């Protein structure tokens, strides 16, 4: 078989075999609608409730606070829109960071069209939200704060618990609610996502990031948190999200999150070791590279760099030819031809951001994979630099 090394686990992960196995019966013999009254349908209901309990136990909440959705994007939309709209009588100000996923950022842009004001908090050069700026940004009209648990591009982990304390203790919020949401899509399986320890009112998860199926996710909504449901119809999910449940997806989510949590310590150790090998190997083999994101407060599986003088899409294509799947925040890889806003917000110059490369590890990656990437990447960068007018030493003909 042709070599294939998958280093794009932040984009998506394969479905774990035990997850698939648990899901399959719900497509066929156990297909019944969980809302139906007959006896066999109760099996579907029970299975969905079981998954809800599993997720709730891991989040450290009661099952009714867990809402199943169609994924991370929907959960983020529910948080921003459903939270802010519910509090529109009390204020019209939202705070988020400059490095959120588009699902949060674009939801905020939508709220701006409805007359809300949004503060996009600056981040430091490692991509950590500036807490002094947060403190200053919260005002009498602030109704919602949304800061991600960990960033999908550079892997930087945010001090969510500390942010929660700032939000919850701020004098401008005394006597009223300021909702605190976190997008924990990249954090599940790597970090503690207990909602009380994080101090969050809302939290988003996406199953396909932790070896579950695509198109299903979780929206955690703390009891008594103001929320307006805007997907209306049937009374599923206690009237907070209408629509016949994605039963097999929900079952898969429960099993996947359970496995991810049980395996978390081992996963973190495994990925961290490979990550650090890869980072150190790249730094020692290639000149003029910059590790992007925080040097230590980063996801165990995230390796992200900018290589000066070269462009990310051409690195990706070369890696692809070598059988390595990775990703980049370069303008040339995006349909919009805009460089990654995350890198720019961290102060990376546009030209340097062009040479961005993200490799995200997973459970199946091995030391041999790292050896192979290290033996391949330096040559690719060197070749592209030999073509580049910006490189230090230009070739002559």
């Amino acid at each position, binding site marked *: 078989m042709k070599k294939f090394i998958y280093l794009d686990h932040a984009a998506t992960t394969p479905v774990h075999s035990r997850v698939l196995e648990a899901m399959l019966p719900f497509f066929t013999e156990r297909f019944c609608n969980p809302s139906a009254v007959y006896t066999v349908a109760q099996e579907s209901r029970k299975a969905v409730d079981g998954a809800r309990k599993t997720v709730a136990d891991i989040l450290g909440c009661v099952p009714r606070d867990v809402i199943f959705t169609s994924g991370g994007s929907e959960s983020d939309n529910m948080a921003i829109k459903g939270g802010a709209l519910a509090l529109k009588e009390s204020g019209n100000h939202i705070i988020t960071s400059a490095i959120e996923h588009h699902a949060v950022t674009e939801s905020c842009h939508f709220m701006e069209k409805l007359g809300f004001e949004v503060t996009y908090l600056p981040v430091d050069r490692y991509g950590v939200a500036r807490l002094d700026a947060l403190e200053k940004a919260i005002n009498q009209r602030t109704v919602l704060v949304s800061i991600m648990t960990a960033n999908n591009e550079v892997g930087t982990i945010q001090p969510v618990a500390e942010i929660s304390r700032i939000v919850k203790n701020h004098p401008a919020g005394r006597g009223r609610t300021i909702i605190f949401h976190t997008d924990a899509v990249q954090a599940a399986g790597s970090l503690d996502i207990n909602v009380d320890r994080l101090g969050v009112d809302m939290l988003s998860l996406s199953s396909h990031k932790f070896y579950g199926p695509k198109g299903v996710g979780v929206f955690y909504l703390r009891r008594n948190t103001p929320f307006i449901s805007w997907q209306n119809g049937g009374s599923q999910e206690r009237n907070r999200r209408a629509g016949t449940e994605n039963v097999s997806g929900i079952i898969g989510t429960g099993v996947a999150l359970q496995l991810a949590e049980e395996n978390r310590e081992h996963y973190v150790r495994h990925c961290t070791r490979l990550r650090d090998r890869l980072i150190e190997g790249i730094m020692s083999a290639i000149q003029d590279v910059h590790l992007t994101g925080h040097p230590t407060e980063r996801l165990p599986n995230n390796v992200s760099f900018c290589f000066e003088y070269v462009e990310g899409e051409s690195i990706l294509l070369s890696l692809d030819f070598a059988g390595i799947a990775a990703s980049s925040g*370069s303008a040339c890889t995006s349909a919009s031809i805009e460089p990654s806003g995350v890198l720019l917000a961290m102060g990376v110059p546009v030209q340097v951001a*062009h040479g961005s490369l993200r490799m995200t590890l997973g459970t199946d990656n091995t030391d041999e994979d790292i050896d192979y990437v290290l033996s391949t990447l330096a040559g690719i960068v060197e070749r592209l630099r030999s*073509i580049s007018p910006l490189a230090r030493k230009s070739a002559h003909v």
Partner: protein
Amino acid sequence: MYNPRVVDHFNNPRNVGILDGADAQASVENPVCGDLINLYIKVEDGRIKRSSFQAFGCSAAIASSSIATELIQDKTLDEALKITSDTVVGALEGLPSSKMHCAGMAADVIHKAVKNYLDKK
């Protein structure tokens, strides 16, 4: 995503580097994504006898510049000025629609190099 011809020019770009003793040189920067192409030409008896390029950009930009140096080989300056982005895309047997502007850069840098040569004379 790319056809074999584009891949070939990306993997084995022709005429890469600074052309020593070039008669003219031009740089084009893509205003959209910030990429950069340099082209060097050597002219004899009104024809382009030798050229070379350097590119900081995506694979389509590299392949476009590479094929541009082949397209202008032995062309008169007038003929070179007639090369368009479509000529480059045609020679590459097609590019994805999001990459058309990269071929445009290659055509632009040809025109600019010829003009720089004519201005210098």
